[in-house]
């Protein structure tokens, strides 16, 4: 069986990490896959209902302040950059830089959540409800609250994870891989936003 021999050579032969990643990191990646599919399921439901609807879908730019959403996007992307810097700094042993950038990431996350809270309040003020809204089919409001709410809850849990990581980093208890894993999750949350931003706010 030369397939076996090839496998034994390649890292798939046992006693090694076939993806070149520790089990912790492999597990994190697989978790990201399933969690991404959860959003995929929600987005699929949104796409279905939007396309099957008989009422015209509202023009997003008339409902949302797209500039404000763009700002939120900016905040999230920037927080991802500082997160990536923190991860690399931790790996290079630059402890102080890692910690500073972690804190910056948390600030970014909190800013994003603040913006989202503001956005929600505004829209609810203008009459958006889960059951209906002034602009179009009820599915518009439903999808909005479900998608952004679910994403927001991910941001929130990300911030909590980051705070824990930061505190432990300050106490020098987090190994570089710990920061890397928190980082993976954070970037994932950012990645999801890219999709929601395009598919819900722009399309």
């Amino acid at each position: 069986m030369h397939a076996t021999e090839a496998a034994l050579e390649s890292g798939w032969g046992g006693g090694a990490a076939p993806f070149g990643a520790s089990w912790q990191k492999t597990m994190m990646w697989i978790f990201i896959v399933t969690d991404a599919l959860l959003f995929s399921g929600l987005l699929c439901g949104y796409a279905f209902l939007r396309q099957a609807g008989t009422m015209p879908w509202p023009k997003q730019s008339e409902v949302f302040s797209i500039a404000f959403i763009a700002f939120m996007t900016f905040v999230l992307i920037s927080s991802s950059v500082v997160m990536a810097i923190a991860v690399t700094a931790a790996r290079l042993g630059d402890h102080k830089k890692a910690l500073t950038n972690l804190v910056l990431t948390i600030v970014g996350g909190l800013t994003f959540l603040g913006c989202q809270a503001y956005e929600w309040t505004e829209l609810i003020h203008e009459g958006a409800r889960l059951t209906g809204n002034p602009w179009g089919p009820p599915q518009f409001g439903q999808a909005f609250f479900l998608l952004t709410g679910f994403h927001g809850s991910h941001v929130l849990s990300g911030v909590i994870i980051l705070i824990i990581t930061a505190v432990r980093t300050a106490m020098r208890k987090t190994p570089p891989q710990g920061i890397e894993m928190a980082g993976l999750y954070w970037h994932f949350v950012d990645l999801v936003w890219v999709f929601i931003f395009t598919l819900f706010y722009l399309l």
Partner: protein
Amino acid sequence: MSETAAGKSPYRVYWITWAILLVITVGMLMAEALHLPRWFLVAFLLSFMMVKAVMIGGNFMHLRFEKPGLAFMVAGGILLTSLILYLFIAQESAHVLERTIR
């Protein structure tokens, strides 16, 4: 890692990515404002959405620097499953719309 080996700051790649992401985002917003034909807008936005995803996944999440197998596993798992969901379910909405009682 490779970046340091080249003698540049190891953080450079993140800032470059950041800049590209921002440019793309601004580009997407402008396309939105330009009243382009719908099909073009959709294609444009979706393509650049994917570009952004690749930038984040590759550079921030380091998939570019991992073994290709990992990237295939992650991207394949998410994209294939989502594609099935989309092609078989979301596209079925056309049929449902046609049959909807108005």
